[in-house]
């Protein structure tokens, strides 16, 4: 066994820590840990491991898990250690167990007993350790085992025990509110505890309870107010002061609670005004913690019933935040502004330029926060500018989580405030193009419905559609479009591609074939594409034109007819069948632009009556309802699924009936409730020759859009068995009404824009103001640019609330322009400056000598104390270096060292700058830390220039 070091740790442990500390790469670290795992596996199971040694092993296990490796082989030893009599070992055991196990782990059951025993201990520290473990390890099932004891401990003479007991109850309430609903009153009681620590802890469960149900706690408003008042007046023990603020964390918690209680309650709010005013006055805006309390005050003020005086103070503080150089404060300011906005929308105008600065800041966090603010202040007058900005940002980021968030914000705002459908479509195109795979499919379905019947005015509607077609044909040239977007494009091209006669059917079909070909592994897109082709063919036939399939189209159909996807197969067969029909039939099957029509389903299939009668006369066997039929569960059952609740899926143990002599071939259509369900199974020639016209309704439905299959074809059962789920369940787009069938003649708009070169932009270009477009030109002059943006973002609110949708952005902007011009010069772009919050930021690394081996020299210094060294001159020289080790050089030379950068480079910069005065400003004197460092060295931890950072004073 290694020599025992100064901390009761073995050489082995110190070596491990040292090697982990000096590891230069993850791979090296992993190697060390894997080796450690091998050692531990061997050692930990040896008989009679001394307890102290075992504690060290447990800590080593903690290291193993912390560095990302599995240490489950040693869990049981951690569990055993919780039984130990020594407090330190017991607590270490509990700590390890809480780090290793979740509350549902099998081993927990072994600990419950120990916990119960420890909760009864005479040693309050043991009780505390057990309560801490209770908070992490007790699950719903084991709560009753400890609950009575925990409740008893609420009256323990030691305040720290009462505090932890409260938190244990808090945990139980989080886990299983019902198990302790009768104990809630204990929280109220403990709020009046003499000890501020217990009172402060009680605020945590009370906060949760009040969040759930504020009304039951209105009686506590006065108590909270008076506690807050006492705290603010420094009535609590000095021990709770933090940076000269009296118990700021308790203040913050109380302010949160008051915000909840005062929301929408005039009387409660009235009781708070005084104390809030007080805190606004007393909080020190120069310290970080003071600002934290101030920010919480703002949150509270914006949540409770309005008080103009407080709002004014809150606005002033917010404006200080926004004007600060610190990004942290700016961030808080933006957030505060968002909260105050709902009380007073005009407040934003004063800060428009600050907001725009934040919007353009390279700091992504700040930018996102600012978008959150803009989202809150969007209205119809500024929606275009805001959504435009959001889209630009969305395109620029790569993080999918952010992208999804911002895309859904765009969609939400666009759906809510869109000034025109053109604009909406244009925005949606961008969202689909850049984040199509991240948005909800429903967004796409809503969008298709909007294109189909969005405009009340039929002329505008068709114009909209043809401009969509033009832009989509253009966009199709882009590589790598998201699947959802391609689905939308295919659907639009299918429905409206040839409507205005600008594009020939073969041109559109060719494009669709390209899509299907390029997306050979995306069945949904292929289904949309082939369905679109079918629609185009149908429209052509119905219009009396002859359809000549392109060779690539024919080969696509052939390929899909043999597809592994039954859905694709089905559409391909339907398409082939459709090509053989005459115009009248096709027109009934696929009425033009009827995607939003309701479909009447003839559930009794009365149109087949004559056929059935004829068959019966010809000797066919009469139809026997499925329920009365013995056994045979054939494929058509699936079609009848929802009429016939559950055809028994249970195993049948009796023998099958003997096969009956086969009946004359009856088209399975007759057996099934919905004939088309069996379309695939029937040779299509036979099917169509026997009944050329009848099934028009359902088949027509099938062809309209793949999204509608489920509803029209009653294919649910089939698809659930074999089909792609994404494609079967979505019937959402078919539920709308509002007929918009239009005569093709009405669809001939002279759309000038449509021919312009523009992509998606072209579609809505005319809806936009030209001055607005100039915004996108290269930045000519920044401040003018900012002014314009400010005006368009904030202008609307003062100028006019709801400008006519014709040209909202322009109107809003012009009206406010003068204001913006006045403000602009006053707020030049802020020069980057040091972060206010960053006191004590990376002091320079140890003196230059550190790279060699600081301890070589450190020992020299320590020498005089113990060994009366004679090297006084060396000591002096080294002392200077040492001072710099613990000194706090002013302005820290902004040493932003990149990971991996040679520490030597940083060191030489700072060495001489280190002053000698601030050395003793905190903590034990440098001599102590020198001794500590020397000890580390004695113990064999030599930094050897590998990672001198390990020794750096964190607060230095």
């Amino acid at each position, binding site marked *: 066994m290694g020599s025992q070091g100064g901390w009761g740790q073995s050489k082995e442990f*110190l070596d491990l*820590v040292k090697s982990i*500390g000096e590891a230069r790469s*993850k791979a090296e*670290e992993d190697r060390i840990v894997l080796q450690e795992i091998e050692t531990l596996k061997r050692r930990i199971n040896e008989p009679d491991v001394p307890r102290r040694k075992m504690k060290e092993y447990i*800590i080593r296990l*903690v290291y193993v898990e*912390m560095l*990302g490796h599995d240490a489950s082989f040693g869990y049981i030893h951690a569990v055993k250690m919780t039984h130990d009599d020594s*407090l*330190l070992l017991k*607590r270490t055991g509990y*700590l390890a167990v809480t*780090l290793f196990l*979740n*509350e549902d782990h099998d081993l927990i059951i072994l600990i419950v007993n120990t916990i119960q025993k420890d909760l009864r201990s005479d040693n309050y*520290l043991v009780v*505390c350790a057990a309560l801490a473990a209770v*908070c992490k390890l007790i699950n719903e099932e084991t709560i009753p085992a400890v609950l009575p004891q925990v409740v008893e401990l609420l009256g323990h003479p030691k305040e*720290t025990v009462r*505090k*932890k007991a409260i*938190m244990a109850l*808090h945990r139980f309430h989080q886990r299983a509110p019902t198990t302790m609903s009768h104990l809630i009153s204990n929280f109220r009681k403990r709020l009046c505890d003499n000890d501020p620590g217990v009172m402060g*802890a009680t605020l*945590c469960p009370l906060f949760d309870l009040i969040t759930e149900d504020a009304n039951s706690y209105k009686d506590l408003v006065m108590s909270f107010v008076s506690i807050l008042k006492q705290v603010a007046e420094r009535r609590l023990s000095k*021990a709770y002061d*933090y*940076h000269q603020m009296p118990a*700021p*964390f*308790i203040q*913050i918690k109380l302010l949160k609670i008051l915000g909840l209680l005062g929301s929408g309650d005039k009387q409660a709010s009235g009781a708070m005004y005084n104390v809030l005013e007080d805190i606004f006055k007393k909080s020190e805006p120069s310290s*970080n913690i003071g600002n934290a309390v101030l*920010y*919480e005050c703002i*949150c509270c003020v914006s949540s409770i019933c309005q008080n103009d005086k407080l709002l004014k103070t809150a606005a002033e503080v917010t404006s200080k935040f926004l004007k600060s150089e610190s990004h942290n404060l700016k*961030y808080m300011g933006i957030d505060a502004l968002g909260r105050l906005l709902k009380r007073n929308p005009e407040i934003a105008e004063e800060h428009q330029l600050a907001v725009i600065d934040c919007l353009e800041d*390279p*700091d*992504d*966090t*700040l930018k*996102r926060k600012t978008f959150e603010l803009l989202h809150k202040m969007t209205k119809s007058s500024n929606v275009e500018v805001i959504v435009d900005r959001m889209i630009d940002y969305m395109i620029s980021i790569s993080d999918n*989580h*952010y992208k999804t968030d911002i895309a859904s914000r765009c969609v939400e705002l666009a759906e809510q405030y869109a000034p025109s459908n053109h604009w909406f479509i244009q925005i949606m195109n961008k969202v689909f193009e850049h984040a199509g795979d991240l948005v909800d499919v429903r967004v796409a379905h809503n969008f298709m419905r909007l294109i189909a019947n969005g405009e009340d005015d039929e002329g505008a509607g068709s114009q909209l559609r043809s401009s969509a077609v033009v832009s989509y044909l253009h966009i199709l040239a882009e590589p790598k479009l998201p699947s959802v977007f391609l689905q939308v494009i295919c659907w639009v091209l299918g429905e409206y591609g040839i409507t205005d006669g600008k594009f020939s059917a073969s041109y559109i079909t060719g494009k669709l074939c390209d899509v299907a070909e390029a997306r050979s592994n995306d069945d949904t897109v292929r289904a949309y594409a082939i369905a679109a082709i079918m629609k185009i063919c149908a429209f052509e036939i119905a219009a009396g034109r002859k359809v000549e399939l392109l060779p690539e189209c024919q080969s696509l159909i052939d390929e899909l007819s043999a597809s592994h996807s039954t859905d694709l197969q089905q559409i391909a067969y339907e398409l082939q069948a459709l090509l053989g029909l005459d115009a009248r039939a096709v027109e009934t099957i696929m009425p033009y632009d009827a995607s939003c029509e309701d479909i009447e389903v003839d559930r009794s299939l009365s149109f087949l009556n004559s056929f059935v009668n004829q068959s019966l006369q010809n000797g066919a066997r009469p139809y026997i309802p499925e329920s009365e039929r013995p056994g045979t569960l054939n494929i058509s059952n699936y079609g009848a699924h929802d009429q016939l609740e559950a055809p028994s899926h249970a195993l049948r143990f009796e023998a099958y009936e003997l096969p009956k002599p086969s009946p004359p071939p009856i088209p399975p259509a007759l057996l099934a409730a919905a004939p088309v369900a069996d379309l695939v199974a029937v040779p299509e020639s036979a099917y169509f020759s026997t009944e050329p016209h009848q099934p028009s309704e359902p088949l027509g439905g099938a062809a309209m859009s793949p999204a509608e299959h489920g509803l029209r074809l009653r294919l649910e059962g089939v698809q659930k068995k074999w089909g792609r789920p994404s494609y079967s369940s979505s019937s959402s787009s078919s539920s709308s009404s509002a007929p918009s069938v239009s005569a093709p003649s009405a669809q001939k708009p002279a759309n000038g824009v449509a021919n312009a070169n523009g992509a998606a932009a072209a579609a809505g270009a005319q809806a936009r103001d030209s001055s607005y477009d100039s915004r996108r030109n290269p930045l000519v002059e920044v401040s003018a640019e900012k002014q314009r943006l400010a005006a368009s973002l904030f202008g609307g609110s003062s100028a006019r609330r709801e400008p006519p949708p014709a040209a909202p952005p322009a109107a809003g902007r012009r009206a406010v322009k003068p204001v913006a011009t006045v403000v602009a010069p006053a707020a030049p772009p802020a020069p980057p*400056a040091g972060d206010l919050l960053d006191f004590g*930021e*990376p002091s320079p690394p140890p003196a230059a000598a550190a790279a060699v081996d600081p301890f070589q020299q450190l020992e020299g210094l320590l020498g005089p104390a113990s060994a009366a060294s004679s090297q006084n001159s060396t000591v002096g020289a080294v002392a200077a270096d040492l001072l710099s080790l*613990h000194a706090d050089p002013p302005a820290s030379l902004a040493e932003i060292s990149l*990971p*991996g950068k040679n520490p030597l480079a940083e060191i030489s910069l700072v060495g001489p700058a280190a002053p000698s005065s601030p050395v003793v400003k905190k903590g*034990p004197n440098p001599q102590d830390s020198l001794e*500590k460092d020397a000890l580390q060295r004695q113990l064999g931890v030599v930094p050897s220039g590998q990672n001198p*950072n*390990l020794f*750096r*004073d*964190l*607060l230095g």
Partner: protein
Amino acid sequence: MGIRFVLLVNKQGQTRLAQYYEYLTLEERRALEGEIVRKCLTRTEQQCSFVEHRNYKVVYRRYASLFFLVGVDNEENELAVLEFIHLFVETMDRHFGNVCELDIMFHLEKAHFMLEEMVMNGCVVETSKSNILAPIQLMDKAA
């Protein structure tokens, strides 16, 4: 629940202390730590000390070579969390005396004990340094 995790990571991205207040599997923790550290370590001093990550907000602060990262809920007061970190460091500093990365590595359990006193169920429950350190000092004496 306010605080979801407390992480100490050095400049090289090596974890020095990890405490989670909700259960994550080893793999989830590994992934989360990797992603967050990558995000935070690339930020400059001028940028703000808050980063959104998945559904967490991460408040971080750098001390010498060590980054202290605290994952919180959306409603948490970021500045207060920043000061909570500082309080933790000050507390460790009081105990260890000029605390450095190596102190935390050698006394991992003590750092955890301090955190245990300060945070329960993800809530800050104790902010008095003497109260936080009292049980640890008693244990030291007894040992």
